[in-house]
């Protein structure tokens, strides 16, 4: 087990899934309201500060496969974000041309420029969070357990679907926590994933096939950055 974690104090260990890192960039076009977007980014920044402190208040952890998935998905999500701002700009220009009140093009330009400036900070924030995270490499035991989970159709695997990535994330978390608990770590361990379809029972509880391990190992679950911040008290 990584030295960072085995030598941890009682500071919470927070395991981040791919979608949660990607959510940092998705907020401008996915959040249902500005407050949710702001709260997400604020929480992510608090996690970064807490994890980067000389005596970390929280230990961010992720799986090797998450870092790969992040890299694979980043171009698409970054393009979506850029396209979203382009669409907002086009809409404003169209609305301005519809009268009767002409919107000053300079105001549109300034607002869009501000939006792009804000958006440009999101990818670096997510990348800093990943850089602040301890990355757990896969190993034969994780790969074997993930494979067993998939072929037996046990959540987060789904019947009729290739789910080895999600199963690898789940087994990395379980193996990490088993080792932490064996080594006497009594602090909080939290999974943060917004992939509620695969990792939850539809609500706020883990998928039924994960509930046994989560209960035994005392692993908490959060589905958003603000939810996670509340759960670990930062």
């Amino acid at each position, binding site marked *: 087990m990584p030295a960072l974690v085995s030598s941890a104090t009682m500071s919470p260990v927070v395991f981040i899934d791919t979608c949660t890192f990607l959510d940092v960039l998705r907020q401008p076009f996915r959040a249902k309201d500005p407050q949710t977007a702001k709260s997400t980014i604020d929480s992510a920044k608090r996690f970064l500060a807490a994890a980067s402190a000389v005596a970390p208040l929280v230990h961010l952890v992720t799986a090797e496969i998450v870092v790969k998935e992040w890299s694979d998905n980043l171009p698409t999500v970054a393009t979506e974000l850029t396209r979203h701002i382009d669409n907002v700009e086009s809409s404003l220009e169209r609305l301005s041309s519809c009268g009767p009140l002409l919107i000053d093009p300079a105001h549109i330009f300034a607002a869009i420029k501000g939006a792009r400036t804000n958006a440009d900070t999101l990818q670096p924030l997510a990348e800093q969070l990943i850089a602040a995270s301890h990355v757990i490499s896969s190993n034969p035991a994780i790969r074997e357990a993930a494979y067993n989970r998939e*072929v037996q159709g046990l959540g987060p695997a*789904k019947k*009729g*679907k*290739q789910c080895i990535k999600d199963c690898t994330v789940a087994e990395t978390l379980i193996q990490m926590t088993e080792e932490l608990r064996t080594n006497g770590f009594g602090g909080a361990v939290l999974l943060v994933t917004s992939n509620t379809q695969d990792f939850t*029972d*539809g609500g706020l509880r883990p998928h039924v096939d994960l509930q046994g391990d989560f209960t035994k190992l005392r692993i908490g679950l959060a589905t958003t950055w603000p939810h996670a911040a509340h759960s670990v008290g930062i």
Partner: protein
Amino acid sequence: MASLRTQVLAGPWEVRMDLATRTLRREAIPVAYSGASAPASVVWLFFDADSAEVTNIVPSEAGALTHEEYNLIAQRFVDEVLQPPARSLGLQIQIGPVSYTLRDVAPEAVVAALERFSGSANKATGAGHPLDAARWDDFVIAAHADKAELGSDDLQRWLVEEQGWDDSIAHELAIEYERARRLLKHYDASRDG
């Protein structure tokens, strides 16, 4: 089970024991489906002491099978691979229901209340409108009153797959449902206590 295993290994579908070279926690035979009616997939047949079960059918390429494709492969596996040896060995094959509906996990009154909500709600706002909220509350109260076994996972899946709700709004409703059921249960317990 040993005889069944032998006959499946010698059966008409290609056995992919190369996929079982990793350490499996139970004995299994992976069998390949390669028909034209569904994507190439592997049927995983696991064995216990006195039974065997198909635990999953996994597509060979990335992606997912539709429910229809999954059920088609399962049925053909039964007909072509399992049925002949089962008949000669006197084994019984049980096939789960092709599908189940909300009525399998909730009484009619609860399903009707949910259908009233989903049928008239604005799917962009969930239960945001007061009339939608009232119909949603009627559904939750009905589920509580009937002690319906309907779980938030089935609710979310029904909203998305059968009613066309957006994933994220369906998830929010599922969480709201779970919270409301918990609150009502707690309220009952506090009154009884």
